Structure formats: structure tokens, C-alpha cells
């Protein structure tokens, strides 16, 4: 049985109709992972034993006629910066190579409660810092569409595993585009929820004021199904909003008549590949055909988003990553005295990009720089947020390319950090503003997928999903896979 193209809905139907039981299903996925992951390398750790145990429990429950959760038996993968109880959570860092969390992240706990089965932990840029997953301590993950290209990052493993069909869906984390950029590069759907929509308990922090966990799925419906099960207040995370969670599946209506769509011109600038712009404009054409009212608009301060992001994110990271000092967990380098132990542990445990960001953040928080950079960055962040607030008075959603280009080749940007950072240019503003943003595949450029980004009002995930779903219904194919060559062709 080819399990690689299954969506959540299809998997649930197979299990419900007793065409296959959970253990058979999980075994099929595990053998598919064994077959493909030697090449793709999406997994840091495949948790075969735990997955089969969980599957057996579900089969037993089915036999005894128990009610099953909404994601019962559906296999998923989890980015390796999301804590899993008694399962190594490495953040793709040597620093945490041996770290076994004594607790599950709230998102993992909620999905397990819904019956989900975790197949393993997925590769990423070390501590979520990077845009290509090349910063993993372990290995590089290949883009399933082209083995010579990166899957994007930092949730590169999460996107590649879904795109290649190793899991039905996965969890990623997004601080500046880390879900949406790899999802776009790999031709899958990725959602960064509103800040506060999903609990961060158990997500190893990169920049807590922007970090959000979100789903990476094959289509929009799956995205809504996963969001239904992870969204909502968590008493362990006071930044998670205590407000009602709608049923996101019910938002999936093929109807956007009268929906007001803003097209921010800054997101279609010189830095963006004209071919990418072309695919996104065609997608916007489909939205218009479906009755959306599309109009050019402007978010003038979003051009500062990238530098502002680097100030705020590195400041927060420099402090948050200070706990990796060799005293309590993770790696420790033996040394003569305490200070030398700190120094050699951190020198050996962190990779170069992480060190760079810690150094930068430490420098920026210094007494002579704090106001000049940090305080100023917070002020500009407010301006960026104000831009969005203004735009959302007029528009229900904003639409743009997710990334300026399609997936680049391995090594191409490692020596050019500025170019690497450019790939987050269009995703970062949503993190700055705390708004939700989703990427949906909207065609190919030279055989590589392009993503359309839809941004919405804070906690306006329903509208995002409705727009994305309507587009998907009229895109011309249900979903794209690398094995079928996309199904969409070069132009839509």
C-alpha cells in the first residue's frame, strides 16, 4: 500500500472502514521511512517502538468499541525543538544531543490525546536558527522535489517529511518564517498561527515574543484539522490567549465572494523573482474569479522588518540560550574550573550560526547599545504592527509570495548570510505583528514549488483558512507532490 499520499481525512477513513488497522498503517509508514529517509534525511530520530505501542493501544480501543479521538491513528512527525517525554529532543544541536525531556510539549500532549501517533523527531536548523536546515548539527535534509536543493528552514525536516509522504502531517515552529518558508519550498501547506493561539509550553525557545508552533500539511483541510487540536489557552503558557477556539474545519467553505484582499506592493519588490511573482499573481487571479475584491495596498514599514527582527530575535535568544551552560543537562565539556567549563561547553556545544546570534544579541543588549538598537527595534516593531492594523481595517486578508525565490541549492547561500536572510524577507513581518499567516502551493518555477502567503487579522485563522481552501478548490489539483511532478505544471 502506498501511504505516501494519504491526507488526514483519507487516513481516518481507511481506519474507520477497517480497511487497515493502526499497527498495519504505522508499519507501512515505518517501512516507507526506512526506504526513503536514507536519502531525504528528514528524521533525526524515528520512534518506532513508541509509535507501534501507541498504534496497538488504538487497535485495542477500536476492538473494545471505545470512542476515538479526531486524529486517531494518524501518523505525524514533530520538529526536534518541541519536547517529547522521554524521547530525545535535540534542537539539532550537539548541545542537546543527549537531552531527554521529562515532559511533553502541550501541543504534543494535545495531539496524542486526539489519538495522533508520533513517528519521530524531525531535522531543523540548530535551535531553529537558519533558513535551509543546513545548520543542523546532524546532517542536511534534501528537498524532496530536487535532491540538490535545500528544503528550507528552520523546519526543513518537518516540510520534507510531509512533502515526501513520510508522515501525514507534521509540527513545525515559526519565529520568522520557519514553517512557511520550508512549506513553500517543499510544496506543502504551512500555517503560523496568531501569536498566543497555540501554547508554547515545551517548545524550546528561540525568540519567545515571536515563536509559534503550527502545522505543516498536504492540504488546507488537514491544516484546519490539526489546528483544531492544538489551538487554545494553556495554563502553563501565560502568553497563550484565553479566548474561544472556533471549529476551523467549519471555516472550510468554498466561498470568498466579497472578501477584501489587499496586495502589499512592498512584498512584490525587486528582491522577488518575477517568475514567483507571476505564479502568485495568477493565484490572485483565481481569488478574483471567485469573487474576492483585490486591491493594491502598502505596508511602508515592513521594509524594516528584517533588521528589526534580527535585533529582537537575537536579543531574546542570547538570554534564552544562556541556560545551556553544561550545569544541569545537555553536553558538558570537562574543564579545570567553572568559567572554563562554561566557555568550552558553549564553544563546543553550539554551531557557528547559533554562536553568531548569541554574540550579536549579547552585544545589542549591552548598556551602550540597548537604547540604540533594542528600544528602537521595539518602536519600529510597533510601527510595523500599526501598518497591519491599518491595512486590516480595509482588507480581510493580505496576499503575497511566501518567499522571494524557490528553494535554492545546497551551499549556495551558506557563504552569503545576507542572501540567506533574504529568504525570510516576506515571512518576518507577520511574526513582528503577531498575526496569522498561511502558505499554500500555487505553482512551480523550473520544477520547484512556489508558495502564496495569506496573512490575516490576529486570531483570524478562520478567514485565512477559508481563503486558502477556496483557492485550493479552484487551483486545478487537490495537492501537489514531487512524485507526480506537481500536478500543476509550470503555470496554473
Amino acid at each position, binding site marked *: 500500500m502506498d501511504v505516501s499520499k494519504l491526507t488526514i481525512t483519507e487516513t481516518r477513513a481507511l481506519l474507520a472502514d477497517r480497511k487497515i488497522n493502526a499497527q498495519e498503517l504505522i508499519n507501512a509508514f515505518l517501512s516507507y521511512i526506512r526506504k526513503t529517509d536514507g536519502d531525504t534525511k528528514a528524521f533525526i530520530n524515528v520512534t518506532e517502538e513508541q509509535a507501534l505501542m501507541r498504534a496497538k493501544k488504538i487497535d485495542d480501543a477500536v476492538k473494545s468499541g471505545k470512542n476515538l479521538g479526531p486524529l486517531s491513528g494518524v501518523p505525524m512527525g514533530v520538529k526536534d525543538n518541541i519536547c517529547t517525554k522521554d524521547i530525545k529532543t535535540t534542537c539539532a544541536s550537539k548541545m542537546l544531543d543527549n537531552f531527554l525531556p521529562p515532559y511533553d510539549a502541550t501541543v504534543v500532549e494535545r495531539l496524542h490525546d486526539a489519538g495522533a501517533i508520533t513517528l519521530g523527531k524531525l531535522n531543523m536548523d540548530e535551535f531553529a536558527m537558519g533558513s535551509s536546515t543546513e545548520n543542523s548539527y546532524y546532517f542536511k535534509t534534501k528537498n524532496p522535489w530536487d535532491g540538490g536543493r535545500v528544503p528550507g528552514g528552520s523546519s526543513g525536516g518537518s516540510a520534507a517529511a510531509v512533502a515526501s509522504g513520510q508522515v501525514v502531517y507534521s509540527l513545525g515552529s515559526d519565529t520568522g518564517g520557519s514553517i512557511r518558508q520550508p512549506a513553500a519550498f517543499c510544496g506543502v501547506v504551512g500555517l503560523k498561527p496568531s501569536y498566543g493561539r497555540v501554547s508554547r509550553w515545551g517548545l524550546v525557545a528561540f525568540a519567545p515574543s515571536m515563536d509559534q508552533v503550527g502545522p505543516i500539511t498536504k492540504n488546507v483541510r488537514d491544516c484546519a484539522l490539526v489546528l483544531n487540536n492544538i489551538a487554545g489557552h494553556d495554563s502553563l503558557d*501565560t*502568553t497563550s490567549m484565553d479566548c474561544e477556539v472556533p471549529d476551523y474545519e467549519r471555516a472550510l467553505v468554498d466561498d470568498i465572494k466579497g472578501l477584501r484582499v489587499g496586495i502589499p506592493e512592498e512584498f512584490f519588490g525587486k528582491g522577488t523573482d518575477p517568475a514567483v511573482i507571476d505564479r502568485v499573481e495568477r493565484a490572485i487571479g483565481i481569488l478574483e474569479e471567485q469573487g474576492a475584491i483585490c486591491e493594491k495596498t502598502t505596508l511602508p514599514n515592513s521594509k524594516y522588518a528584517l533588521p528589526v527582527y534580527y535585533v529582537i530575535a537575537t536579543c531574546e535568544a*542570547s538570554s534564552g540560550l544562556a541556560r545551556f551552560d553544561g550545569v544541569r*543537562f545537555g553536553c558538558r565539556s570537562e574543564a579545570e574550573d567553572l568559567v572554563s567549563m562554561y566557555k568550552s561547553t558553549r564553544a563546543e556545544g553550539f554551531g557557528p550560526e547559533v554562536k553568531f546570534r548569541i554574540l550579536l544579541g549579547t552585544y545589542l543588549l549591552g548598556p551602550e547599545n540597548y537604547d540604540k538598537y533594542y528600544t528602537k527595534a521595539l518602536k519600529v516593531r510597533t510601527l510595523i504592527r500599526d501598518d497591519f492594523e491599518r491595512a486590516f481595517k480595509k482588507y480581510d486578508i493580505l496576499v503575497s509570495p511566501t518567499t522571494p525565490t524557490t528553494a535554492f541549492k545546497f551551499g549556495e547561500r551558506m557563504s552569503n548570510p545576507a542572501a540567506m536572510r533574504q529568504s525570510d524577507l516576506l515571512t518576518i513581518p507577520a511574526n513582528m505583528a503577531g498575526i496569522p499567516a498561511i502558505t499554500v502551493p500555487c505553482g512551480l518555477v523550473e520544477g520547484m514549488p512556489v508558495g502564496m502567503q495569506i496573512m490575516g487579522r490576529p486570531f483570524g485563522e478562520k478567514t485565512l483558512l477559508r481563503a486558502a481552501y477556496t483557492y485550493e478548490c479552484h487551483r486545478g489539483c487537490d495537492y501537489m507532490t514531487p512524485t507526480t511532478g506537481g500536478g500543476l505544471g509550470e503555470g496554473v
Partner: protein
Amino acid sequence: MREYETVIGLEVHAELKTESKIFCACTTEFGGEPNTHVCPVCLGMPGALPVLNKKVVEYAIKAALALNCEIASICRFDRKNYFYPDLPKAYQISQQDFPIAAGGYLMINTPDGEKKIGINRLHMEEDAGKLVHAGDDIARADYSLVDFNRSTVPLVEIVSEPHLRSPGEARAYLDHLKAILEYTEVSDCKMQEGSLRCDANISVMPKGSKEFGVKTELKNMNSFRALQRALEYEVERQIGLLKEGKEVLHETRTWNEQKGITEVLRSKEEAEGYRFFPDPDLMPLVIDEQWVEAVKTTIPELPADKKERLMKDYDLPEYDAGVITSSKSLAKFYDSCVGLYDDPKEISNWLMGELLRLLNTNNIEIEDSPITAENLVELLKLQDEGVISGSIAKKVFEEMFETGTDPETIVEKKGLKQISDVGELGQIVNGVMEKNPQSVEDYRGGKERALKFLVGQVMKETRGKANPQLVNELFLKKL
């Protein structure tokens, strides 16, 4: 000769006695096996997040109101970043730019009368864990272990204005502050257990100068006495330097209790910046007027009011009332005694004299006093009823303190009852007169003092048990 003036400001850390820690549900209980009162939050595990304990905010508001502070309607938590093994996240969650309260004061008594000492700010923060060194001290230890039971226990830091002008004033400020924190029941204030800690900033300047001198920061004073001694030492040291034409260096110094001196810990130049910035894991804290009003109603009678009341109701001298109300437990002990025995001044004399003396020399807190209020009152009654004499009462008191036994039992067992039998005393008086003819002669010759000697001889023979008044009367009769 040039005269100098001292300027002192105190930074006091008090542990709040909430049941659970400030950012997690772990117990704050003191003691316990190492690392048993811990969870992912207070161990700083990756992915763990702080959740503010509302009770801590309530206690902080209470303390701040009792110290006449303004409560901020919005305050914020910041990260104070530094590496140390007892600090699991390598940052302490504290409040830097927007503390919960500011602009308060408390009154202290000085030889020149009452004085108002400003309180700059009061803020909430989390405590660190504790290092246990395998060896005599940190320098010679083979290794060190960390106990995180104390990690994330709530603290308030209370920073005074530099209004204190002597070590005595600093002591008085700390005494009153401690009393207020005890009365409001927000802290145990036990310096030995570390639930009250005090650092001091101190400088000296020529008298009348408008500009403060260079200050040093003093740490590691583990008792009220240590604070006063360290400050006194530092005043002398700094004045000594200035007199020699040398400079006082801006540095942090630590009090060495054994040597009785302060020693350099680090120079301020080496001290790293803490890189404070707002903690993104915690939302700004909004405190509305109703909350503050609700907390206000829970504030009990404070030491200053209680002192007034003791002076008014019991006619106690100001000094007595001040000493008794300086500690909540002492005041409580006094209240219990007064409730049982109607001689407030006599009770006060015993409390401030014998009891405090014995407690202090034995380093015992009033809560742990082996003498209960009931037993003290019983002793006073025995004395009042003439069963024992005043001097015997003091001996019985010491015995009570040592053994915890009630006075009646002690008096009974040791046969300390006052001898008031005229026949028995008469025989003793006769014996003393026979043995001391010279004194008898002297008295009859007009030397009044000789009588005192004779009475003393009787007391000596009866080991203090003779009723002194009766003895006096008998002598007068016989002489």
C-alpha cells in the same frame, strides 16, 4: 579636625511566604531533601515557561502599602542576565524599569527624634538555588552541588533612599522594616534561614557636603548585628582612607564575620552588565484599583500603631513599647501575658530584661522560647503573692529557661519558698546578731548601713529565701 558624615542606603531581600513559588507550583517550604521541591520551570528546563503566582503579587502589594508606597497600575518583569550555577536559566526574572511599587517611606527613632526614611522602590523577583560545596569553602572544594529547592521562591527587594546617616539608623530601619513585614505576614524574616537578606551601600563625605562620597556595596551580613558591625567597620575604614588622603574605591565588599572586617569581592569596573530587558515569556502585569483596595483591607495593625496603643492602653514608656512592638512575636507574647496578669509594666520589665537577655545570649527566637507566657505569668504571681522573693524569682526564671519547667514545680522541688515564718526567721536573726556583734554595735551607734549588712547575712544563710521585709522588721524590733 575634619568631621565626616555617613550616607547609607539598604537593599533588603525578603522571601515571601506564599505556599508555592513565584513562577511554578512547587512548594516554598524551607529544608527538604535537596532538589525535591523542583519542576521543569524552577530547573530552567528547555521549553518550560513561567506562570506568575497571583498570591505573590498580593503579598507584594500588601508589603508595599504597609511601607506607604504607590502601587503601579502596570508593571513588568525583566530578565537579569548572568551566569552562575545556582541560577538555572542563567537569568533571574526581576523587575527593573517598571517595579510594582515605588515612593514609600518608614519612620525610625533616632537620638534626635523621629526620622522619615524614604523607600525608593519595591519589586518582585525570583530567588536562586543554593550551592553546597564539598569541602570547607568554595575555593578549596573538590566539587560543588546545586540544590534548586530555593530556586524561584518569591522575593521582594526593598530599596531605601540614601537617607540613613549612621549604622545605628540603618539598624533601626532594618528593625522596623522587618517588623512591618512580619506584622503583615508576608515574610518570616529569618536572617539565619536566609528569608531576610540585606546589602548596604555606604559612603562618607565631609560634614555639610552636598555631594556624596564614593560608595562601596557591602554583602554577606547574616545578622542584624553583622550589619551594624560591618557598617561601623566600613565607616572607620573609609574615613581612615580619606584622612590619609587616599581614595575610596567603588567596589563590592564582603563582610568577614570571623575577622570582623570587610574584604574586596569585586571592583565595580569588572562587574558585568546584567543586560536587563523585558521578559517576553510574561505579559505586563495590570493591577487595578479594586485589587489594591481589597488588599488594603487585609493589612493588620502595624508596629507603629501597636506601639501607640501600648503606650495609651497600658501606660508603657515609649522605649518599652518600642522594644516590645519591634517584633511581631514579642508583641504577641506580651499580649498573651497581659491577658493573664494585670501588671503591664512588670511584664514589660521581665520581657525586656531577663527574657530578651537570655534569648539573645542563647541565640533563640522568641517563638522558640522555652518559657511560655503562662509560665512567666505564674512566676510573677508567685512573686506577687510573696511565695518567693524577687531574687529567687530571677533564679527560678533561669531554671525555667533552661529546663522549660513551670515555676511552681521548680519552687516546690528546690524548696525555694520564701520563709515568712516569724519564729523561724527570728531564730536566724538572733544567730546573725550573735555572729556580728560589731555590726550590731555600729547600728546602735547610728550607722544606718550596718542594718543592710545584717539583712544581707540573713539572706545569705537562707540562700535568698527569707522574706526581706519581715527580716527588716525583726531587726528593727530587736535592735
